[in-house]
């Protein structure tokens, strides 16, 4: 009797059959895994507009998925984007390159959104802002919400002259006053389209506009903001322990996305190098 040993067909064998090596305008990077095909990443000043920076991957200019050239005005942002490309050791992991994907979205604008549409999308998050709807069920959680979220409301109310209030009831109508809504809209329209797209991204991650405003005014650090946006989850973790591959992964994911988005937002609205006195970003 012979013992037959069957090895499981490894998944890499299947992927090998499907790998194609065609190169399109964006180096064919859309969905496939690509190996790192460049040795050196460098940042140069663009020849067309001398105040902007471009990124070169081994003499080839970096382009967005739509084929537009990636030009960045801020030197620090260009350098950190170059560093992100440089960090890919063997394979290019596009899912973790948040700076790259956000900058591509800003330059491409694939959904062809103009400022009003973006503002409308952002205002949609205002009605169900996380900070305004509280629960009073476990008493500890009730106190936790008050101590963590109330200072944020206070800061936003002071800076923007609004009167946001929290509620413990889901059926209340008109929690947001019309005047507050207009104040927020006016505040948002003071940013340009790219910054608004970043703001929308942050609001989508945090599920709250008030927290995004708080981040932009540098009232709390990125770590604190990501904890504040999932306060209930954190409370349950303190009760029932942490599951690393879910909770940690989730908070690290949120944190990296928000940090990347904030970097781009700051760099769009403040030029870090060339100015002598840094401008206020509000």
């Amino acid at each position, binding site marked *: *009797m*012979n*013992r*037959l040993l069957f090895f499981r067909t490894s998944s890499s064998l299947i992927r090998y059959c499907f790998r194609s090596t065609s190169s399109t305008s964006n180096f064919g990077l859309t969905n496939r895994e690509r190996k790192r095909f460049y040795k050196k990443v*460098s*940042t140069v000043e663009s020849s067309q507009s001398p105040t902007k920076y471009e990124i070169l991957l081994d003499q080839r200019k970096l382009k967005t998925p739509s084929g537009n050239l990636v030009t960045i005005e801020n*030197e*620090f942002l260009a*350098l*950190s984007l*170059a*560093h992100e490309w*440089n*960090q890919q050791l063997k394979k290019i*992991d596009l899912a*973790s390159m*948040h*700076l790259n994907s956000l900058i591509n979205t800003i330059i491409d604008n694939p959904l062809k959104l103009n400022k009003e549409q973006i503002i409308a999308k952002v205002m949609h998050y205002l009605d169900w802002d996380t900070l305004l709807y509280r629960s009073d069920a476990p008493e500890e959680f009730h106190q936790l919400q008050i101590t963590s979220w109330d200072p944020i409301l206070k800061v936003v109310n002071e800076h923007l002259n609004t009167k946001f209030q929290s509620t413990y009831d889901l059926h209340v109508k008109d929690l947001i006053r019309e005047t507050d809504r207009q104040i927020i809209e006016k505040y948002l329209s003071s940013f340009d389209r790219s910054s608004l797209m970043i703001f929308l991204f942050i609001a989508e991650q945090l599920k709250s506009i008030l927290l995004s405003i708080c981040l932009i005014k*540098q009232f709390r*650090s*990125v*770590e*604190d903001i990501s904890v504040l946006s999932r306060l209930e989850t954190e409370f349950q973790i303190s009760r029932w322990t942490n599951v*690393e*591959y879910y909770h*940690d*992964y989730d908070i*690290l*994911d949120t*944190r*990296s996305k928000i*940090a*990347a988005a*904030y*970097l781009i937002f*700051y760099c769009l609205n*403040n030029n*870090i190098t060339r100015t002598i*006195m*840094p401008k206020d*970003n509000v």
Partner: protein
Amino acid sequence: MATKSALSVYKGLLRELSINNSKFSYRSLPVYLKIKDEYRRHRPITAKHCKPNDEILFVASTYLSYLESARKRKIIQSIYSKGERSVQQAANIVGLALPEIIDRPYLPIDQRSQQ
């Protein structure tokens, strides 16, 4: 969490840059030169000019938390994305082993009765 001091953010940034670049040292990275330049430029002067220093420090610590959290997320993903264990591995956890099966030549299971 208290805001980090400028020095600890700087050290953290150097650590992150050197972890990701096992081939070259971080000194050759242009990002490192940029960060060094920024730190030199914005050394704390007097209380009047503290506000822009805090802003830049916030941006620096945001960059640090971006690098750190992206790296940790990749680590978690690489640890836990291996999928379920096979029956053999699951038995090995408690020290058991699967019984050895000796393959016989294939016998047709549904033998139709010969007409």
